[in-house]
């Protein structure tokens, strides 16, 4: 059965020949059949990295944040860079699941599930860093406004406190959105699995879903409402993160364009991460019929557009540094481009601005291997961007006598690579135990699900 709406210009979002039954088989068998060998190998590597993370954290608790490279004047280093990087990656998942749903962009249906999972895991990794950075992480609850007998109260005018609320709200909504979207598919797995233990677990998670019309009605309104709630969060979370910097008066941090520019950067890196995950996954599980070339192309276009917004941010910041004629601002720009961190700066320009320009070419957008390379480059570039913003502004500010250099230590690297491992391990578990593509949403996209109105 072929899609009558498909044209050569806009191919169908599911390859022809599928029915409801075969779509369900194809996606659920990834979870229900025997674990492939490469999964064990991949999970083992990720698990080792998680162990390394635990070791690095244990050592940090024993010794204190001094084991990292941070000191005066550079009090934020890899840790906050990683925080911003991870939290930014999460944004693409929310954008895909919430905003594209509200915009009725149906191509999102095959990528939203694992993009949402990616959001959750990325937010988890991000959340670790501010906690570890506290120095005394066991008193993290001081960040919350609870009636403390010590009379300690958070400084509500500080964006760092806003961050606590922004990120925890974001994590909650992302989890609810992901879980609500999973319920019908968990019921499918419950009905299909042969393993009695799995049937009980999936059954409990499916919360008694039977697929009645009333269930679907409630489901639809809940899902739309959560999408509406999640949409402002795409913008607000990273705006608050940008306030962490922009509220200060440090040259290179205090710029009014930061909120939209940070949000665009977040979506940019998030889509790069979605591509980084989607391209190998579709190849490994043979899901090219569901995550089609058109999906990859659309994501490449989003990356190109958000990359250009990021470039606009760099451009306007540099121009206004000259226009404003503030000696510290001018020096900040010169120091970024020519100072001791010039390599990182120019690498970030190459990764974030030059590399994605290849995506103008349709052939580049159609090659999964090439897209994968570009996505990795953008991931690196966005990490460097946060590093450059944070470190170059701190290491040389107003007083030359208090200038200094910053270098991450082996513990910074171990913590960062460790969270990469944590993220990968969670992704491995996710693709093994839950359907990584939304089965029921894919079924609605089949030609047989499209009801044509009879001409009167």
């Amino acid at each position, binding site marked *: 059965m072929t899609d009558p709406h498909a044209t*050569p*210009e806009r191919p169908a979002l599911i390859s022809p020949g599928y029915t409801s039954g075969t779509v369900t088989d194809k996606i659920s068998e990834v979870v229900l059949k025997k674990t492939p060998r490469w999964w064990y190998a991949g999970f083992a590597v990720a698990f080792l990295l998680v162990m390394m993370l635990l070791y690095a954290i244990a050592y940090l608790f024993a010794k204190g944040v001094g084991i990292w490279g941070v000191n005066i004047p550079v009090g934020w280093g890899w840790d906050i860079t990683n925080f911003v990087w991870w939290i930014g990656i999460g944004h693409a998942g929310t954008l895909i699941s919430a905003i594209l749903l509200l915009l009725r962009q149906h191509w999102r249906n095959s990528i939203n599930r694992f993009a949402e999972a990616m959001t959750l895991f990325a937010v988890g990794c991000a959340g670790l860093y501010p906690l570890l950075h506290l120095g005394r992480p066991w008193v993290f609850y001081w960040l919350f406004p609870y009636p403390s007998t010590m009379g300690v109260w958070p400084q509500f005018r500080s964006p760092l406190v806003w961050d606590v609320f922004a990120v925890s709200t974001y994590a909650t909504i992302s989890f609810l959105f992901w879980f609500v979207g999973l319920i019908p598919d968990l019921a499918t797995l419950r009905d299909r699995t042969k393993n009695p233990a799995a049937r009980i677990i999936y059954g409990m998670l499916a919360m008694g879903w039977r697929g009645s019309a009333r269930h679907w009605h409630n489901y639809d309104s809940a899902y739309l409402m959560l999408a509406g709630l999640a949409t402002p969060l795409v913008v607000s979370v990273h705006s608050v993160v940008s*306030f962490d910097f922009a509220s200060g008066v440090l040259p290179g941090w205090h710029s009014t364009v930061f*909120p*939209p520019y940070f949000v665009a950067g977040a979506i940019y890196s998030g889509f790069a991460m979605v591509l980084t995950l989607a391209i190998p996954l579709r190849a490994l599980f043979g899901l090219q019929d569901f995550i089609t070339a058109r999906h990859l192309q659309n994501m490449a276009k989003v990356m190109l557009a958000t990359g250009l917004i990021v470039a606009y941010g760099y451009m306007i910041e540099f121009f206004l540094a000259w226009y404003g004629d503030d000696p510290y601002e001018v020096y900040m720009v010169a120091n970024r481009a020519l100072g001791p961190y010039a390599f990182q700066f120019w690498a970030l320009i190459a990764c974030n601005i030059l590399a994605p320009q290849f995506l103008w070419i349709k052939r580049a957008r159609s090659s999964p291997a090439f897209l994968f390379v570009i996505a990795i480059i953008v991931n690196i570039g966005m990490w460097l961007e946060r590093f450059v913003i944070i470190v170059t502004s701190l290491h040389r500010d107003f007083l030359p006598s208090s200038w200094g250099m910053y270098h991450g230590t082996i513990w910074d690297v171990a913590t960062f690579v460790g969270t990469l491992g944590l993220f990968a391990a969670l992704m491995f578990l996710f693709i093994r135990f839950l359907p990584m593509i939304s089965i029921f949403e894919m079924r609605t996209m089949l030609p047989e699900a499209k009801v044509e109105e009879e001409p009167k």
Partner: protein
Amino acid sequence: MTTREQAGRSAADYAPPAALEAIRRGALLTGGVGAAAAILGFVLDPAQFYRSYLIAFVFWLSIALGCFALSTLHHLSSGAWGLMIRRILEAATRTLPFLALFFVPVIPGMRVLYHWARPEDVAADPHLQHQALYLNVPFFIGRTALYFAIWIGFALVLDRMSRRQDRQAGGEVRGAPRDPRLTRRMQMVAAPGLILYCLTATFASIDWLMSINPHFHSSMYGVAFVGGQAVSALAFTILVTLWLSRRPPMDVAFRPTHFHDYGKLLFTFVVLWAYFAASQLIISYQGNLPMEVGYYRTRTHGGWGTLSLLIIAGHFALPFFLLLGRDLKRHVGGLSVVAALLLVMRWCDLYWQAAPIFSPDGPALHWLDAATMIAIGGLWIGLFAGQLARRPLLPVGDPALPEALNA
């Protein structure tokens, strides 16, 4: 009439209503009267004339230019929402060459408007001397000429392609051979068009408005200007759809779902504009640097403080809550009331940005503010109505039109 019959109608069925001619004449006449009053005002008080004129010019230009931006966005997103209003957007972009002429009176007024254009001020201020490399009279005029060349060039190319699409279809919506490559080619023009628009609009906002306030600069300024243009253009477009949907042939083409989409889009633009404006305020407030806080200090005291509150209420809070619900967005009448309010607020916002430097203690409204608005507005609406009357009201050659009509 069923949707299928509707989709089968031809270009002749979407001919613009004859009443447009009356609008055109009436608007031109009003504009002429306004222009006479403005000229009188110029003789009596040239300085005030320039101040009022700049705001009026930017207000009307924002609508036409915002329509250009929306049309590129429509081509790139290839959504159904844009097809129903594409002819309105295109008619507005065809007025851009005339708007370039409307800029000419700003040139002799530069000395009145901008500190950096007065040699005696520049001589006394090292900061202005530094900026003189960028902010000087010939470069300012040259840049403006370049902006208009880019906007007009891209707008006309897109417009021509759209007309070719009509002709290729032979005026028929269905059953005629179409060239799908044309859709793609319009996208290829729209992409660089939108990028260059963002850059040029940013620098235009810096040149025309931000540089009025010496020593003030904000990297959000251009972004907020672009966001404001989106509100202006969509609000104007909604008012035009209101007028069109009240009479044949478009009364049967527009449906509540279309207005629902425009309502959602307007809501998005209003929220985006507020997000830009609020971010700029929060960051400036927290930084508390003289350069930025001075800008806000003037605008939060006395009469300007009242205007600020009015803008928060009228440009954000009220439209936000009105557009939140579903019913209002599906009725063009209610939607148009919000659109009209937003257009008024757009003027207030521009006035709030540009005027306080000339009367720091509070708004000093002058009859020339109204006269220049009526002069440019009347002439511009007349030009717009004339352009709108030239083509079928829907892009009959676009392959996606039947889908958009049934949306």
